[in-house]
């Protein structure tokens, strides 16, 4: 799922400097799961903002809402009445949710309250790690289910660089070398021969983010 981290409070306070009444909107999906923007975090951030502004002598009224999924137009529409009452919206949903609100409320400034960080997996409770870069052309079938695009610091396709040492990456010693993981996994599956194949230069431009806005259209689903 999408992982995010709350922005520093001082940065948020800066965005909201010229507003006295805001809506703080969370999201009940991904950011709730990664504890960055669910109802609990909305309450905490709202309380912190109110106190910080009170201390600065410029009280802030912060309304709170947490729609089920901010990235759906219907859920965004549910906020309409509340948004009318405020001068600005601070969204602690991911970057997608922020943009959904921005699209829906053309007259109200919408600010991000979190940094959307990556698509990740829960390693243990409270620890998340990047697993996917949504590159648009999945090669996991060749790499034993471990993604070198997301997990190798150099995005290598043909095996580890010379800096792979004792299973760790030379960039971050606490991080596993993705290619060591791939090697171990393929070794366990008895499919090491897969690492002998050369993966040719990748066609980034056709499927990836570098080809501009990506769009999925399912004609059969359109209404």
């Amino acid at each position: 799922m999408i992982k995010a981290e709350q922005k520093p409070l001082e940065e948020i306070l800066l965005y909201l400097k010229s507003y006295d009444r805001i809506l703080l909107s969370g999201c009940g999906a991904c950011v709730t799961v990664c504890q960055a923007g669910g109802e609990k975090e909305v309450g905490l951030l709202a309380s912190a903002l109110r106190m910080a502004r009170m201390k600065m002598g410029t009280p802030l009224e912060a309304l709170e809402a947490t729609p089920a999924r901010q990235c759906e137009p219907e859920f965004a529409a549910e906020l309409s009445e509340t948004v009318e009452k405020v001068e600005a919206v601070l969204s602690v949903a991911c970057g997608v949710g922020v943009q959904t609100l921005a699209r829906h409320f053309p007259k109200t400034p919408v600010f991000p309250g979190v940094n959307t960080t990556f698509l990740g997996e829960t390693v243990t409770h409270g620890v998340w790690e990047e697993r996917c870069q949504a590159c648009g052309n999945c090669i996991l079938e060749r790499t034993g289910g471990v993604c070198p695009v997301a997990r190798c610091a150099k995005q290598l396709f043909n095996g580890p660089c010379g800096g792979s040492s004792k299973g760790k990456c030379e960039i971050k010693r606490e991080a596993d070398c993705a290619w060591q993981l791939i090697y171990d996994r393929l070794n366990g599956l008895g499919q090491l021969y897969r690492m002998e194949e050369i993966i040719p230069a990748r066609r980034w431009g056709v499927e990836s983010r570098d080809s501009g806005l990506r769009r999925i259209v399912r004609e059969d689903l359109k209404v």
Partner: protein
Amino acid sequence: MVNFEPKIVAFCCDQSGYPAADMAGGLELNFPGNVEFVRVPCAGRIETLYLLKALERGADGVLIFACYEENCQFLRGNLRAKSRLSYAHRLLEKIGLEKERIEICHLATNCGPKLAETLHRKSEQLKKLGPNPAKI
């Protein structure tokens, strides 16, 4: 401020803090004038938001009276309280409030004197810090 009597919200775990408060009363150890006890089944019940809300709604300081570490009836309630407190401390710092305003005190049922002492110390400390400038 001469007549400032700090308002303290004291969360008391029912397994340790609350009986300790009873004991302190029984020993006629005086409490500071403006303490509000909140009885909770376990320190793990104390949400991070309560710590902030207490300050937001007018308290000058917050105390958590929880069981000693490794002695929680519910195994990890006191540790959760401690972790939540550290998160609240980070927020207080960002808000610009002294983190001394929220504190955890680990004790057992028979620690009445420790509880009373902690309350007095906190009250004196808060007197020095002055009223909570962020209360609404």
